[in-house]
């Protein structure tokens, strides 16, 4: 199936939005403006953009600690995201949660997650809720290669398989869990192989190729919607920066890094749009500067928003 110019431009726009958001978050964190920890999605944009392009608003996603990209792609409000990352009361969690705890249920965002692998069973339960309510909504669970070593992954994939649940397990394999490279934390090369252990399809895709990600997701989603159960979709990718902002990242081989940087999804997207005559260099530059302006506006909103109040300390712990 080949994608239309419009669809491709939309996905490209999404990738650029994530890229610019993360670039600015990175800068502001280094400048000491942001509290907490920041796990940047830089380099992995094609996965969030490609997967969510295959979803509807009433589909759900459960995100990870590296969640900004998933949230933006699923339609998250970047002003509320920025405010949250700044720790301000106008943010998604009223400034009490920060980068790793953003959720927006109206948009089907079940939440980022500070516990690696924490979202996988939650996504699976949400998939049962979709099935039980008789909707044909599906749920996507995003997690990393290292997360697939947790019991939560194995327990949840097995349950989804046994009950044919409409969930797509998207493993963003950036080949490292913090400093530990994949060959030191698992025996297999493709996490997708783990699907076979539970009797579900395991698919490997180039995670830096937004079209390939989209197409693989369309297949998995179609199967989930018609009740044929889950898919494990592994997207091979690379994070451009350290594990978190501040990680010197000395454990990666510089030449491997260079190779992957040449496969940057936005570089590739740009080349593809131009080759197919879907956009000119100028049009891409215009689109990028529009997005930059949008992000600056979100930053201004975050930065100038009030801090949470003392009274907020005890709210939202219980229903009353």
């Amino acid at each position, binding site marked *: 199936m080949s994608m239309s110019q419009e669809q491709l431009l939309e996905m490209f726009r999404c990738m650029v939005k994530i890229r610019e958001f993360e670039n600015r978050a990175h800068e502001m964190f280094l400048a000491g403006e942001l*509290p907490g920890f920041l796990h940047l999605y830089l380099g992995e944009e094609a996965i969030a953009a490609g997967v969510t392009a295959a979803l509807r608003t009433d589909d759900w996603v459960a995100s990870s600690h590296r969640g900004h990209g998933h949230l933006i792609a699923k339609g998250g409000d970047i002003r509320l995201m920025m405010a949250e990352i700044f*720790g301000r009361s106008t943010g998604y969690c009223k400034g009490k*949660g920060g980068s790793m705890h953003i959720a927006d249920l109206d948009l089907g965002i079940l939440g980022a997650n*500070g516990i690696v692998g924490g979202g996988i069973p939650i996504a699976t339960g949400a998939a049962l809720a979709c099935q039980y309510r008789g909707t044909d909504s599906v749920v996507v669970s995003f997690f990393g290669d290292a997360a697939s*070593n947790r*019991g939560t992954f194995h327990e949840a994939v097995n349950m989804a398989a046994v009950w044919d649940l409409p969930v797509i397990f998207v493993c963003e394999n950036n080949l490292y869990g913090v*400093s*530990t490279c994949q060959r030191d934390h698992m025996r297999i090369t493709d996490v997708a192989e783990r699907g076979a252990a539970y009797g579900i399809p395991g698919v490997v895709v180039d995670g830096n190729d937004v079209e390939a990600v989209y197409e693989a997701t369309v297949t998995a989603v179609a199967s989930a919607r018609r009740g044929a159960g889950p898919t494990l979709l592994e997207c091979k990718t690379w994070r451009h920066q350290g594990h978190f902002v501040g990680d010197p990242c000395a*454990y990666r081989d510089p030449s491997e890094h260079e190779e992957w940087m040449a496969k940057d999804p936005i570089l590739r997207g740009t080349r593809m749009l131009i080759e197919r005559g879907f956009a000119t260099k100028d049009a891409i530059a215009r689109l990028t500067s529009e997005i930059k302006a949008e992000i600056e506006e979100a930053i201004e909103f975050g930065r100038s928003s009030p801090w949470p109040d*003392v009274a907020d300390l005890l709210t939202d712990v219980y229903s009353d």
Partner: protein
Amino acid sequence: MARLNMVEAIDQALRQEMDRDDTVIVLGEDVGRDGGVFRVTDGLYERFGEDRVMDTPLAESGIVGFAIGMAIGGFKPVAEIQFSGFVYPAYDQLLSHAARFRTRTRGQRTVPMVVRMPYGGGIRALEHHSESMEAIFAHIPGLKVVIPADPYEAKGLLTSAIRDPDPVVFFEPARVYRAIKMDVPEEQYTLPIGEARVVREGADLTLIAWGAHVRTIKEAAERLAADKRCDVEVIDIRTIAPFDAATVVASVKKTGRAIIVHEAPQSGGFGAEISAQIMERAVLHLEAPVKRVAGFDTIPPLSKLEDLYQPSVDLVVDEVIATMEF
């Protein structure tokens, strides 16, 4: 004697005990080649190799369960959890297995292992990275819970914890990690597990804390002394399980007043146990109700609100004055 921060002191304790005893094995996520996310295990991989400093997969319950098996098999594993907020998948292993093995085998086998982890707030991090849930570990019979307040204690207590025949959960206050340097003897030494330490003697009131808040209460006591308000005794609990009630009770019998300070949520926190022990053993010596200055019963908030969440020197001073005036 070198001036070390807590990270360096723990690293040194591990290195020296690994030199002394080749059954000591360090394991955890990123503890090896990388030297740990907080660099606590820096240099150990280079010195001892991958057989004794093991980079594990991301699997907390696996790591701790694995450590139990190694301990039963004759080793002394020291497992690192990157933040205490990530230990709960392993809570099952600690509660259901590590803590019970001695009883189950009627004393024939023990589980000499340590689970180390940074904990507590004050580092501007978010929920799982700032919490202080020591009470739910102290509630487990068979588990020891040790919390050093400074680099000197960290080295001595960790050495004791590794040598201890029972499982020890070792909480390292993240905000202290690099905040202070102090003289730490180069040679190995141990500090007793199960004994509190009187940090400062005083006649009017007993302030009690552990971990990062030993500093808070020491500063409060010093300020109150400088202002000639009152003479406060300061106790560093050091190990909340087993809890040294005798030292606390003796102090309160002398001073007649007690305030317990912790950053964990107040309800069901370890302060409640200390207060109950004082009631049971020293009630007739009390001049005022025992008070707690504790965290709120909420999830640790990010950033700005954290300053309000954490017990402060000002707050402790105010509570001391109120208790003195009761």
